[in-house]
């Protein structure tokens, strides 16, 4: 007993001694590395934060102040920049349009993507692999190749310049990513619970909605976050397929507002409009950022 204890003690002492030696050997280079790392990260953080901070401060200045002194704080904080941006740039309306289109598309694509992934992942039938690979290919085509035919496709259906048309297009282009991500997820779910549900008399429909879908919730949340970011930032599809100004989404409204600014420059209102557009998304991001980091590691490097 005591022999073993002594042995153990000796071993741990040896380990500590060797650890110390190693630490001394690399400590110098480690410290240098840490200094360089901190320097790099601080520099990058400044490059990221500074423009945003500048936009925020400028949004409270008059155009004259912005032109004469880009650094200075405003003399009087101009809150009416925001009211002007809200009314002139119709930010409120476009914001609402964006919310409607993105929320509808998100709900639809999550549902359809989950259904499709579920079938492909858990049922054997002829053509299964073909469908899977065709959708995979859809992930890599440049959207630009399809944009012109898509324009006429929507026109034929009478869906051009309508919200349902835009929503369906969003769904179609987000579907491969969603399906692909959830496919891996559904494959990993245990069979026992599903079997139990069938024995209890649940049909395919109930088994999916009451058993499988709730189990896939973590995967769904991760995909939903990425789909939200992607759809919210979407620019090309609305610009090409949604030209009715009353139905513009935020991104295209902002682009139009900025280019109209080229003629009668109201910098203050432009900066205010940018702030109004960015802040809600930043807040959502800060709340969910842990989830995003988690989902990146979970979904992409398995």
């Amino acid at each position, binding site marked *: 007993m005591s022999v073993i204890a002594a042995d153990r003690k000796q071993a741990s002492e040896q380990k500590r001694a060797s650890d110390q030696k190693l630490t001394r050997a690399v400590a110098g*280079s*480690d*410290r240098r*590395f*840490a200094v360089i*790392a*901190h320097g*790099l*990260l601080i520099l*990058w953080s400044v*490059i*990221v934060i500074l423009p945003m901070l500048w*936009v925020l401060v400028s949004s409270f200045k008059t155009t004259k102040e912005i032109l004469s002194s880009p650094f200075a704080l405003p003399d009087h904080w101009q809150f009416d920049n925001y009211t002007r941006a809200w009314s002139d740039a119709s930010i409120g309306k476009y914001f609402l349009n964006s919310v409607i289109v993105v929320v509808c598309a998100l709900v639809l694509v999550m549902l*359809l*993507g989950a259904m*499709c992934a579920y*079938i492909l992942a*858990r*049922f054997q039938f002829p053509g299964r692999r073909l469908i899977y690979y*065709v959708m995979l290919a*859809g992930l890599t*085509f440049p*959207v*630009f*190749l399809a*944009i*012109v*035919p898509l324009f006429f*496709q929507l026109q034929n259906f009478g869906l051009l310049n309508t919200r349902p048309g835009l929503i369906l297009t969003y*769904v*179609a282009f*987000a*579907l*491969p*990513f*969603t399906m*692909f991500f959830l496919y891996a997820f559904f494959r*990993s779910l245990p069979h026992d619970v*599903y079997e139990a549900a069938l024995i209890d008399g649940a*049909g395919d429909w109930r088994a999916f909605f009451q058993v499988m879908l709730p189990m896939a919730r*973590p995967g769904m949340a991760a995909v939903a976050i990425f789909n939200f970011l*992607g759809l*919210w930032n*979407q*620019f*090309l599809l609305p*610009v*090409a397929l949604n030209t009715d100004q009353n139905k513009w989404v935020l991104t295209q409204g902002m*682009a139009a507002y*900025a280019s109209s600014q080229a003629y009668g420059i109201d*910098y203050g209102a432009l900066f205010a409009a940018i702030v109004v*557009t960015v802040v809600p998304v*930043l807040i959502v*991001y800060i709340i969910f*950022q842990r989830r995003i980091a988690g989902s*990146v*590691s*979970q979904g*992409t*490097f398995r």
Partner: protein
Amino acid sequence: MKDKTTTSDTASSRPTPAARGGRPRRRKLTFDRVTFFLAFLGLPLAIFVVFVLYPFGQAIFWAMTNWRGFSPNYDFVGLDNFTKMFQDDVFLKALRNVALLAAFVPLVTLTLALGVAVAITLGGPSKGPVRGIKGASFYRIVSFFPYVVPAIIVGLIWAQMYDPNAGLVNGILTSLGLDHFKEFAWLGEQATAMPALMFVIVWGLVGFYAVLFIAAIKGVPAELYEAARIDGAGRFRMTISVTLPAIRDSVQTAYVYLGIAALDAFVYVQAMLPNGGPNNSTLTISQRLFNIAFAKQQFGLATAMGVVLAVVTLVFAALVFAINRLTGGGESEGGKKARGSKARRAGAMGGAQ
């Protein structure tokens, strides 16, 4: 988070349900089952075929016509659009610009993203196991910021930053005593427009890839780092000899998708240089295509440009894979690994673009 990762780990190696002798048994095609299949597979597939596959297929046909869109008449002109395109100096310039973007943007973005990721994950104290730098989560949150901002807004912000008179860039430079930059138009000079544009794209994308690489580096077994350390390797050496080889495939995937993003670049150029920049020095194929299609109504020619863009994209991807293979990387371990890398590919898309 943790147990989820492990369960999905086993997923790829698990035999298919049929192989295990369990589900799915052949069951009768009841009404319930038929509607289930129709709704669950038919509906998503129909949307996908109608709005994605069919337009792509049509594009290839229309690229060989002189269709102008609003009249029902068109002639089949074979490869005329393509010869016309390659005699068009403006298009050739756009092609050159896009090649420049695809060459530099991924290189710079990934170097920076790797730098940030390594600094965050390996920069920590030297006692104990190798771990992250102090304030890692702050740096991670901040560096991801620009990716959350819509790309069009990123472009607008930087268009203001670069403004010759009121922009912050010139403000900082002149306050440093560089009076040469007092009214320097970054986006208006042929020499600086393209680099300025590239910088903005990089600024917008680094954070996402940094977070991606942080995740990849965290997946590298800790024993590898311990072993390297016992051999007396410093942090820099560890990065080169342990981290980089371990996350090589992730880098390749990221490279391909960054290249695709750079080849397009539509949002950024539309926000900052809607007219193609000084002397068309930043004109991209996508911008030209959009103009030819929706302003000039030459839809046949425009879709032909789309085909060229798609081919350039494919060539770029093939080049990246070939270079990676030639320099000793690549997928030699067969099916399992291929599946993993495909999942990664989907992830690198970062959502519904």
